[in-house]
């Protein structure tokens, strides 16, 4: 007699679990759809921030890649600040305040360093304009006719008459 309500209760519990799992999946998908990527874990955030910072005592290594003690300490500090709820921008700003813009792996989009972003495009545009102007000029210039170049300057009417007379004379002299 009690078996049926128990079975119903179990079925209801399983249904709730499935519903909860579906809801979690939908929320995750919605977050991914809105942000474009899955929310980064704390370790991933530390890695991302460290990868954007230049190791101050290394030649060409990021804080994420450098084995130097200072870089390790920077990674530890980043982890502590991430745990404390600081945003990546706030953490980067702290390092920039101490080390200057040179601590950033990519130059900032302001000041003289900002020219690195638009100068290549500007140079490319200038090159395209110059190439276009040269091409236009080349297409407009009349090309010399090689046959015309071989035949020499055009003959005057008197010269043509003289040539005609000479040809007629030669034909008359020809036998048969």
């Amino acid at each position, binding site marked *: 007699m009690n078996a049926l309500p128990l079975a119903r209760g179990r079925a209801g519990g399983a249904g709730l679990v499935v519903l909860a799992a579906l809801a979690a999946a939908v929320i995750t998908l919605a977050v991914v759809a809105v942000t474009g990527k899955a929310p980064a874990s704390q370790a991933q955030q530390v890695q991302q921030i460290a990868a954007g910072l230049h190791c101050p005592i290394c030649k060409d290594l990021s804080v994420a890649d450098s084995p130097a003690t*200072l870089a390790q*300490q920077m990674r530890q500090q980043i982890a502590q600040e991430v745990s404390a709820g600081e945003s990546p921008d706030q953490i980067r700003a702290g390092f920039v305040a101490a*080390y*200057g813009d040179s601590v950033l792996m990519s130059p900032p989009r302001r000041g003289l360093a900002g020219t690195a972003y638009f100068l290549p495009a500007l140079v490319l545009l200038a090159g395209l304009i110059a190439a276009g102007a040269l091409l236009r000029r080349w297409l407009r210039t009349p090309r010399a006719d090689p046959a015309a170049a071989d035949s020499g300057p055009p003959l005057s009417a008197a010269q043509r008459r003289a040539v005609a007379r000479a040809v007629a004379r030669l034909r008359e002299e020809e036998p048969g």
Partner: protein
Amino acid sequence: MTARVTGRITRRRATLLATVAAGVAVVVALLATGLGRDPSAVASPLVGRMAPNFTLPQLDGQPVTLSKLRGQVVVINFWASWCTECQTEQAALNQTWQQFQDSGVVVLGVNFEDSTGAARDYVRSDSVTYPVVEDAASHTALSYGLRGVPETFVVSRSGRIVSHVIGPVDTTALSNEISAMLPGSQ
């Protein structure tokens, strides 16, 4: 007509050449400026700003807080027992401390990337007379933008960083700088 056309072409060529020459000159000037600069001697952005505050323990455990030293000139010297250049400047720092400790000047050694035992041995054997604190997790070093040791920051009586020295300090230069910051100096 031909002369006018020729003149126009010459002028156009001259303008083109001048533009190219100006571009080349700008690139050469930028390269000359960049190549002439020592990449390791990057100016600290902290000079002119308030010195980041810290509370660090001395080798005997007594804490030192920078903000509590406001009103005095503070010479913050980052050093390590394994650093040879730090030994080079040791005499200069001792001399500065002895010369100015009664005039409202504090010389403060901040031990960087070192062990407490090695730091204590160094302080004892090299007769370091001024207070020394330990920056075990390097938080203070990072907040001062440290790239290596020795590095020295001179903090004014109002708590502002007035100078930053990378490498060993010079006794005369440091002494002159401190003298200029003391009351009664011009």
